[in-house]
């Protein structure tokens, strides 16, 4: 439906990004870092903790403009984002939190989202009354409710227990399958990336750059542990090649 000439790709071409260190001097966090995402593609940025993944996401989200290079958002640039913490407004109910971020959302869309994420019974609760798992679901609902052109997920399941994280991953996979959206997932968890993404982008340690790419066959489909292990082996091989 986008008018002619509207780009539907995410193009990231960062030359470098530095922070001024407290002791004076510059600390380079991102090096030459370029990649593109086609419409509806789900890519996972995988890299060690502290390599600059969150900084990269903040740049793409427009929260940090102090860098060299360029970022082109797809289509109209409507963003949905899930931060590492839920970042809900504690003084507004679950439903208000979603509606304030997505004023155009229809009742039907909202009801469907809340149903998928198991939030139907919690619409009128305040965030302080929710568990962390539920609060993250609200953050997911909020990001999908804006019907984003680009969905940014910053380690959305960090500090949840394994079982809960697995369940939320499955719910997210279902959401992404049922309403395709260009998605960039940042994670240090390779399994999470394999389960959700079409493509893995491997990042180096700081200053981060793209080491290599691994396409994922049959993304977001259930896999046996053996198949998972095979994909992991391939990724390990790629990482070794990239470092050599």
């Amino acid at each position: 439906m986008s008018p002619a000439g509207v780009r539907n790709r995410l193009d990231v071409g960062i030359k470098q990004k530095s922070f001024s260190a407290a002791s004076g001097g510059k600390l380079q966090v991102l090096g030459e870092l370029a990649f593109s995402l086609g419409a509806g593609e789900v890519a996972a940025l995988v890299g060690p903790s502290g390599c600059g993944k969150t900084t990269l996401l903040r740049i793409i989200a427009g929260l940090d403009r102090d860098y060299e290079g360029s970022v082109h958002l797809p289509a109209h640039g409507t963003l949905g984002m899930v931060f590492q913490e839920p970042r809900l407004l504690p003084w507004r109910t679950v439903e208000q939190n979603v509606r304030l971020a997505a004023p155009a959302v229809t009742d039907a869309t909202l009801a469907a989202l809340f149903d998928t994420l198991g939030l139907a019974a919690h619409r009128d609760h305040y965030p302080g009354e929710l568990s962390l798992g539920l609060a993250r679901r609200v953050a997911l609902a909020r990001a999908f409710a804006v019907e984003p052109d680009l969905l940014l997920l910053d380690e959305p399941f960090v500090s949840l227990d394994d079982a809960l994280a697995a369940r939320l991953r499955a719910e997210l996979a279902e959401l992404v399958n049922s309403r395709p959206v260009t998605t960039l997932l940042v994670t240090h968890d390779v399994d999470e990336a394999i389960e959700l993404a079409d493509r893995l982008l491997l990042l180096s340690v700081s200053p981060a750059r793209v080491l290599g790419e691994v396409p994922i066959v049959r993304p977001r489909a259930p896999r046996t542990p053996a198949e998972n292990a095979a994909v992991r082996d391939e990724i390990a091989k790629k990482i070794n090649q990239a470092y050599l």
Partner: protein
Amino acid sequence: MVARLVSLTLLIAAWYAGSQLAGARLLPDPQTVAVAIVDEARSGALAFNLAATLARVVVAFTIAMAVGSVIGLVMGRSRLADRLGDPWLIVLLNLPALVIIVLAYVWAGLTETAAIAAVALNKLPIATVTVREGARSLDRALDDMAQVFRMGTWTRMRHVILPQLAPYLAAAARSGLSLVWKIVLIVELLGRPNGVGFEIGVAFQLFDVTRILAYALAFIAVMLAIETFLVQPLERHVARWRPKPA
């Protein structure tokens, strides 16, 4: 509730005992003051003067809170504004209330505008300092969230910033209300032809302690009513999302 009643009874008893010791001229007993309040109420003077004072309190308080909060918010959010505004703020904070009032009357005449401006100027820097503290502690994470989701200026103000400032605004309003009505009385004493402060000034010249106490108590009652029926319910409403202490 019982404790409060006991405490209040003790206060009245102490007052009564004090009046017996000091004599009715220096400290009239509670009954005499009560009768004086009723007399003033019957003549209509009490209502008229209370209304005049209350109107000044409301107008001066509203102006000081509105202007002071906006300046505080801007100073808390912008380092440049903070540096520019801080010396002014320190001057205003340390200028005695009496100096502001006298200067306002000298420069603008004994007018209603001068009176209200003087009161507002006394309260304004305190509101500014309190709200600035609140603005400095605003959550950057929520700011980022609001920016990513492209929330409009009004939505951000109403749903992201104001709720975070609410405790600071409440503190500024609380301390402000009690300060403002005390200063309004001085302003009335020095340059207004009506109001509780004016009546107390007249009573002072006549050495009429009964009337002084009658007006003071009547006005305290009005402020207590405002606190109970306006400020506290508002605070409860604003804090409704906070988990209740067990």
